[in-house]
């Protein structure tokens, strides 16, 4: 029995664990990665001195993980690396886990989902070809293995992470040849009011400056940038060879790295039946939470990017807030103390979210990213189902992704709809002339990650 079980050892989970342990709660932190850090600070304990990763990763990331290790030393935190949550009984608080030594279970008084974000799928023609990856994938290869793409590398899409990656690759001696930026003409003008509102630009000035520096640096290193690109296609026989785009654009390429921003990973929160809402600015589903990250379920809270994209510092703030709330609910912290301890975290959160409305509008994915126009484009990578087939299912009567799944198997493959779910909903919405929110979301089921029949059969009783 543990007071607080935290799923995810990224910035949100780490901050929550440190805060909760400091309040005397017994904490169990579960993460499927072998080391703490989450997506942004993946493998930071081994890679912090890599010059390509200098900056936030090498300094702030390493410091956060050191604080977590110190908190473990101080007692009160049970950190289980390489352990996956595959089922959660939200009534009894029973977590079903799978680690390197088999399956097991754990009972918790409160559960915090800090499962983070995933990159938005970018379903362009040819995106299933070998050597087409996400930008985040290339960054993970750099963080985990120090590896960089070889040959002619092209980045395509938009968003801060793409520029960060360009800079990191340049520092690693592998400057990308070309960035095909998909931000539409006029997006900046349309986004400006969101930045001016509430002094967003002023409060987010450090972030803006950082962004400008990154852009300048990778251009200096020799990366060409083509703006307002539409109609991206990846082409080649058995592997990526060429990239083309509207207006006759074409280039040879060995590696294509796609990115259109990140969206909350809602696989687990949806499987648990938590209410979600469609976020019209971030164009993604997010679980409904209150100012403490608490969901309507008395056991469950969600913090970090899994509750809505805010970046890693915002994630540490929401993680800490959820920990304070957990302590309060478990009777270890009076409400007034919770509220006063929350003040610095809320302050940080406000500062970190100041620039979001501007960024969200500037980098809003084009309609064709949400619902590919070309009928032959694969939307479900696992079952190899195309946008045209989804449109046909919509015509036959599929009103949402769950019926489409029954018709087409979209969402039935190994990824269980993590990749295709939102795209299928968007294609149906477009075909039926309804908002995406109305088309709805897939209802995934446990196991959240595959387990073998044998592992399931050997579960210890009770």
């Amino acid at each position, binding site marked *: 029995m543990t007071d607080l079980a935290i799923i995810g050892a990224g910035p949100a989970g780490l901050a929550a664990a440190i805060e909760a342990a400091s309040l005397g709660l017994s904490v169990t932190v579960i993460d499927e990665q072998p080391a703490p850090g989450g997506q942004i600070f993946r493998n930071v304990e081994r890679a912090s001195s*890599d010059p390509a990763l200098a900056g936030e990763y090498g300094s702030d990331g390493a410091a956060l993980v050191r604080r977590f290790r110190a908190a473990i030393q101080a007692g009160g935190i049970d950190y289980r690396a390489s352990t996956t949550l595959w089922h959660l009984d939200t009534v009894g608080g029973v977590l079903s886990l799978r680690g390197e030594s088999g399956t097991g279970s754990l009972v918790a008084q409160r559960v915090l989902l800090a499962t983070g974000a995933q990159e938005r799928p970018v379903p362009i023609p040819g995106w*299933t070809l070998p050597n087409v990856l996400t930008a985040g994938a290339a960054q993970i290869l750099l963080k985990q*293995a120090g590896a960089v793409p070889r040959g002619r590398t092209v980045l395509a899409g938009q968003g801060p992470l793409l520029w960060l990656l360009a800079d990191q690759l340049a520092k690693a001696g592998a400057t990308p040849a070309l960035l095909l930026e998909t931000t539409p003409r006029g997006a900046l003008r349309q986004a400006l009011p969101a930045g001016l509102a509430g002094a967003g630009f002023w409060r987010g000035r450090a972030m803006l400056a950082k962004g400008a520096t990154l852009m300048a640096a990778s251009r200096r290193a020799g990366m060409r940038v083509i703006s307002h690109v539409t109609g991206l296609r990846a082409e080649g026989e058995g592997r990526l060879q060429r990239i083309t785009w509207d207006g006759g654009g074409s280039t040879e390429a060995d590696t294509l790295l796609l990115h259109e921003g990140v969206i909350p990973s809602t696989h687990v929160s949806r499987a648990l039946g938590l209410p979600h809402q469609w976020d019209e600015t971030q164009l993604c589903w997010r679980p409904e939470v209150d100012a403490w990250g608490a969901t309507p379920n008395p056991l469950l809270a969600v913090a970090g990017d899994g509750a809505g994209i805010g970046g890693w510092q915002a994630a540490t703030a929401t993680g800490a807030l959820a920990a304070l709330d957990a302590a309060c609910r478990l009777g270890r912290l009076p409400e007034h103390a919770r509220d006063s301890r929350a003040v610095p975290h809320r302050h940080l959160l406000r500062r970190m979210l100041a620039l979001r409305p501007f960024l969200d509008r500037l980098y809003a994915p084009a309609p064709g990213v949400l619902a590919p126009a070309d009928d032959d484009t694969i939307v479900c990578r696992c079952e190899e189902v195309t946008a045209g087939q989804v449109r046909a299912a919509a015509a036959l009567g599929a009103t949402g992704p769950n019926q489409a799944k029954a018709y087409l198997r979209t969402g039935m493959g190994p990824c269980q709809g993590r990749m295709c779910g939102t795209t299928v909903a968007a294609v149906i919405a477009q075909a039926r002339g309804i908002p995406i929110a109305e088309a709805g979301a897939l209802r995934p089921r446990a196991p959240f990650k595959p387990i073998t029949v044998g592992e399931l059969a050997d579960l210890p009783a009770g």
Partner: protein
Amino acid sequence: MFAQRPDPRPATVEVFVGDAALRVPEGSTAAAAVMLAGLPAIRETPVNGSPRLPYCMMGICFDCLAEIDGVANRQACMVTVRPGMRIAPQHGARAARMSA
């Protein structure tokens, strides 16, 4: 295809990708080893036999399913390398071993 940068990240763990031996840095995953080995595909899909390589590297897309140390359909991007690990590409649907 991906390349190593031995200066900041020495390659110390020997694994086998297909039949080829390869050294990769500690903390790498089996999927990273496949990318470094320059394999044309880690699997062919059971649906149409199309070649795939890892796409997301973070456990979302399941395009990195491979046979690792004799066990089929493991998510290679979620498996940390160990010395002597054998990573083999998969063709179509896996087999089950009846004699096991």
